[in-house]
């Protein structure tokens, strides 16, 4: 962020001990919003996510996912299996306002990372626990990856709809790209963590139990609402009756007309063909009933059209239409440039690369990425010595013993 005073979390210190995507993303968003986030990794190769696909380079393996999730943080190493390592972690906790952790519940006591142990030593610290199924309940110790939590949250069962489902009605449900469910979990965690910071002066630290499954059920709440209305949704029943994905001569667009004037705009866009001027189709309920027929017509017409023309002409007629953009479209889009959502990230092997910052502006300014992720322990000297006051002899000794 150009204006440092806009960074809302400036002045806060967060310690992040995260092996997974959700907790790492929570730390990432806090860093982008101005917090000093210190990521604690095991000595040696560091987090396994450093080698996770998609990769930027094969040898040595450098992960695009890791770089995306960890921009803006500080990197220290610390072996929590050793008492000395646990002591070091406790030292930075004492200087922090918030601690993010995704250690499985059953492993926490051995590492002194259970809520009572942390509360006893650091009563003012907010302990933000981010786990696939949360820290309490019968499934708390279940193992899960993105695909599992996506399906545990209910949206997995309901994907896909529309054209994809019509094309492959018999296939298993399809996931949303990447780490959607885990990033939802991380975003939800930031909401809860900031909330605890808001009341820290009044109530001190507290234990905040975030579940990625809960977060996904929350954003998927319409399915529960519909169930309460007597409708158990499935992939087929949830498809929009008409509109959706249209294949053009040079790509795909999406169209959705929920309001009468939008439908009328679409009819104009198609060129007022006879079928669309049928007076019966002025009735939205009739359009729903004849959705398959409308889609046949729209799909035949769209194949003769170019994507950019449709989007420009459609939006001018107030028809909600969008191109299915690929990464190149997004990076080069005038909208992305005007919003400043990409900022240069200095990657050691690749030079300066534009990286996505955040999906919001504050007081008219885009957010910034202060630094790229570096090697495990690259900030050991800065944190353990310059910040905490240990000397370089101690540092050398800890390195020798594999503590850091």
């Amino acid at each position, binding site marked *: 962020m150009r204006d440092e005073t806009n960074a*809302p*979390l400036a002045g806060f210190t967060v310690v992040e001990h995260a092996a997974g995507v959700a907790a790492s993303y929570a730390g990432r968003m806090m860093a982008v*919003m101005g917090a000093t986030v210190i990521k604690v990794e095991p000595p040696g190769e560091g987090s396994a996510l450093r080698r996770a696909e998609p990769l930027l380079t094969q040898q040595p393996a450098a*992960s695009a996912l890791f770089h995306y999730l960890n921009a803006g943080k500080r990197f220290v190493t610390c072996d929590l299996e050793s008492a000395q390592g646990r002591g070091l972690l406790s030292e930075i906790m004492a200087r922090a306002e918030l601690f993010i952790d995704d250690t499985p*519940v059953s492993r926490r006591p051995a590492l002194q990372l259970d*809520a009572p142990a942390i509360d006893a030593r650091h009563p003012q610290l907010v302990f933000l626990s981010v786990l696939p199924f949360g820290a*309490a309940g*019968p*499934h708390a110790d279940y*193992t*899960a990856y993105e*695909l*599992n939590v996506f*399906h545990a949250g*209910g*949206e997995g069962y309901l994907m*896909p709809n*529309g*054209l994809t489902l019509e094309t492959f009605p018999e296939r*298993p*449900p399809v996931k*949303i*790209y*990447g780490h959607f469910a885990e*990033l939802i979990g991380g975003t939800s965690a930031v*909401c809860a963590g*900031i*909330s605890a*910071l*808001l*009341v820290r002066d009044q*109530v001190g630290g507290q*234990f905040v*139990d975030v*579940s990625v499954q809960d977060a996904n*059920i*929350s*954003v998927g709440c319409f399915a529960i609402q519909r*169930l*309460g209305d007597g409708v158990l*949704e499935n992939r087929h029943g949830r498809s*929009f*009756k008409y509109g959706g994905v249209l294949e053009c001569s040079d790509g*795909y667009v*999406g169209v*959705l007309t929920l309001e009468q004037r939008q439908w009328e705009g679409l009819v104009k866009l198609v060129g007022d063909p006879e079928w669309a001027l049928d007076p019966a189709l002025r009735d939205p*309920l009739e359009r729903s009933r004849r959705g398959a027929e409308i889609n046949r017509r729209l799909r035949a017409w769209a194949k003769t059209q170019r994507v950019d023309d449709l989007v420009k002409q459609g939006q001018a007629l*107030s028809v909600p239409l*969008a191109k299915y953009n690929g*990464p190149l*479209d*997004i*990076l080069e889009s005038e*909208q992305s440039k005007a919003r400043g959502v990409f900022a240069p990230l200095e990657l050691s092997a690749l030079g300066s690369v534009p*990286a*996505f910052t955040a*999906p*919001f*502006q*504050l007081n008219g300014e885009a957010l910034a990425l202060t630094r790229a992720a570096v090697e495990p322990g690259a900030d050991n000297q800065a944190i353990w010595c310059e910040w905490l006051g240990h000397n370089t002899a101690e540092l050398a000794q800890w390195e020798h013993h594999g503590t850091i």
Partner: protein
Amino acid sequence: MGPSEPVAKPATAMPPLHGVRVADFTLHAAGPFCAHILGLLGAECIKVETVERPDIFRKPHPVYGRMGAATFDQVASNKLSVQLNLKQPRGIELAKRLVAVSDIVAESFRPGVMERLGLNYEALKAVKRDIVMVSVSASGQTGPERGYAGYAPLFGAAGGLGTLTGYEDGPPTEIRHVMDHSTGLTAAMATLAAYLRKKRTGAGQHVDVAARDVACGFIGDALLQFAATGIAPRRTGNDAPQIAPHNVYPCAGEDSWVSIVVSTDTEWRAFANALERPALLTDPRFASAHTRWVHRRELDTEISAWTHAHTREAVTRILQAAGVAAFPSYTAQDIVDDPHLNARGTIESRVGPEGEARKVVGPPWRLSRTPAKLDGWTPKLGEHNHYVFGQLLGLSDEEIEELIAARVIY
């Protein structure tokens, strides 16, 4: 604390946003979800609507197959409802008075509308110096596409998330309500940060959230990969590079599925042993993570044959006991029936004002000292007119009646 025990620390305070007031001008799904999150955290959310412009849950939704109003709206369930006609100058005046007694303003009009109404950030700052304002829109308040209309699947399209979602040999795929609600969740995150800053510095802030950029945020790794290497990621169905098995498998019963992921060699050995198929461990096709990935379709066929003979629950039980990640593909019914979710309060049983019982989604977090809560029911349109215009803004009953007659409160 054992995994099956509830968090024992007693609550000692009110919810974190107790005493915070939100003037909520949002409609549809994304904006209201933002205010809903703030409401769950304890803010008093005052939802502004009119007879002519009620929220979508009060209307039929035929494209979606709903032919009448919803009987309950999850994302309005913690809110108060007032009617205020912003087409009338006196409506604008009252809106400003509402903002003057609020801490946060949320809106999701098309960019430019709040300015036209005289309710943009600068105007509201003049009314309440330290106001935090959050604007939620398709493409943001600035840029050449700021005026573009959109709904969830179109945010997913423009932001690239829908483009990368789908089967390898199929078209791009619509991202549905979760796109709206994740936009709202992101807006709530930024708004909470801005409010925390306001509490520390006394300065308000305007949070401008673009739904298409929220979709971009979900593919941030792919965008970085492309920018750095020129390799454009593609749709890959349920595949994850170099991880197999990684799929959704059919189980006994109709449309019944289980998700299974085996990421490490340790998990692979545990998986083969749990299936009582030691031959998998000596099969050269499956000898390493890379060869398992190369032969993933053959692996999928073998696994499907096994899962098909079991229920989702049995597969999950067997594999989780072995430390392998497996979980049923949950329907909404599965979610409301799940003992874990009921124990956590993620799912709550509620009874409405007319005695109607239903399951609802509770707060998605457990804060040990300042718990979030869902404590209302969907308000009737204008149900809280007298509280807000009378008690909060100090209008007399006569003044309120006159404003109703003049269709200012409408």
